[in-house]
């Protein structure tokens, strides 16, 4: 697409974002020969170190068909890596849908999502006693008239020292609320886009690793320059045994099924690692919701404030 982007008086944040997202047409031009050139050397290295890793001729993963193909926005291309070896081996190159992974990140929506995730389950147990709960105060302190002093009905009224609190916290106070569906949807899109733009998103073919040794994961993450905390996302919620055992002792390597993906977790972990199956499922679900026409009728039963 031949559009020229000029930003005159935008803020620094949006400038940074536009540089990431409004990519000129000639960015990543890949073809098979270029791919082969780059991988000739790496293949031989791997064979020397780990003779047991047998792989068909690369690239294994060639292409990916996008649902709701984008008209004018270029799909984002990402390498597909392996988890078999500590060193990164690129198995192929795939397209990611720009409407899911290349959307302009809305920082306000991301903030709303994080706030919602933290607050919807929060219950405040702070409590203060009202005038009828404070011990005592049933008897009128003195006669209404005659003493020359002010008139009172109870020693625990709010104007008294030691009296009840009028509008104080009342335990338990829930802070539950539901963020709108589209806000949550756009939160996911914004966060995924931000992760990809900041090189914190990696795609792997599957989460099968050769050993259940925790140090294997440590070395792998260290070697590839993935962040201290890594979130591995797969389509299935029953993960392979080895990676489950390996990541069990580490609190910063976490496994998650696609249906559990959320903005807070994605921001908390430095790196997000998705399997191919997870990418397929994620795109299918998000694009379905972006293009559906029956959301109003389908979402009626989930509305909290309407009958």
């Amino acid at each position, binding site marked *: 697409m031949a559009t020229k982007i*000029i930003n005159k008086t935008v803020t620094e944040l949006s400038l940074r974002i536009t540089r990431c997202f409004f990519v000129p047409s000639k960015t990543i031009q890949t073809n098979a020969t270029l791919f082969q050139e780059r991988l000739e050397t790496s293949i031989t290295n791997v064979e020397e170190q780990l003779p047991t890793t047998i792989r068909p001729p690369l690239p294994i993963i060639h292409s990916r068909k996008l649902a709701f193909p984008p008209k004018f926005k270029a799909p984002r291309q990402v390498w597909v890596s392996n988890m078999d070896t500590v060193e990164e081996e690129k198995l192929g190159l795939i397209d990611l849908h720009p409407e899911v992974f290349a959307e302009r990140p809305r920082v306000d929506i991301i903030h709303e999502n994080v706030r919602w995730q933290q607050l919807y389950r929060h219950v405040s147990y702070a409590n203060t006693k009202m005038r009828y709960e404070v011990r005592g105060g049933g008897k009128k302190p003195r006669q209404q008239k005659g003493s020359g002093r002010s008139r009172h009905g109870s020693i625990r009224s709010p104007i008294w020292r030691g009296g009840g609190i009028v509008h104080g916290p009342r335990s338990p106070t829930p802070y539950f609320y539901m963020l709108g569906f589209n806000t949550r949807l756009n939160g996911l899109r914004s966060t995924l886009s931000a992760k990809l733009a900041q090189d914190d998103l990696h795609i792997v073919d599957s989460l099968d690793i050769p050993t259940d040794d925790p140090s294997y994961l440590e070395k792998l993450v260290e070697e590839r320059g993935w962040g201290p905390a890594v979130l591995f996302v797969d389509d299935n919620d029953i993960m392979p045994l080895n990676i489950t055992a390996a990541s069990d002792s580490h609190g910063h390597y976490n496994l998650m099924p696609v249906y559990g993906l959320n903005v807070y977790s994605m921001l908390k972990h430095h790196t997000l690692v998705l399997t191919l199956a997870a990418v397929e499922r994620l795109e299918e679900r998000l694009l379905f919701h972006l293009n559906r026409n029956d959301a109003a009728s389908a979402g009626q039963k989930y509305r909290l404030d309407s009958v």
Partner: protein
Amino acid sequence: MASVAARSFVFRQQMNTRRFDFASCLNIKSFYSSYSANPKEKSPENYTQYHEVSSDNWKFVERLKPPTVVPSFPKNGSCFSDWTPPPDTPPNLPYFVKRTKNFMVPVYLNFEAVRNQRKITMVKHIEGDIWALEKAIKSHLEEVTKRQVVSQVHEVAMYIKFRGDYVLHVKKWLLNAGF
């Protein structure tokens, strides 16, 4: 309930030396997996006859159901409404206004609950240089209406609002621009 059952059970035992039948004492309700499993059900001949229709007829049911995902528009043929399909190539401009999922031009009329109801024309789904687009539309509106137009540019959410009802003018401009 239990005491009544116990009493009836004891009575029965005294009456005749019949084997203990708990179900007959307590009248346990039995549920069957299907109509045909129920012993009270007779063979199908005793009931109203029916005949199966070809499963090809399901298409008549399916076409009544509304599509969940927006179908693509027909490429050929004229539309009798004002709607024009989005073009295949984008215009060579520093901005772009994307069509909605139903291929409509994203211009909306909002009402603000102010003393005398304020009409706001909103343009959404903007990509690129939003200020250039705002300048272009504003100058066009001022030319057409011959009065000053107040606008708001929201850079984060990427929309433009014009104070007044200029929906038709803006839509026409966008279609002419090639969006």
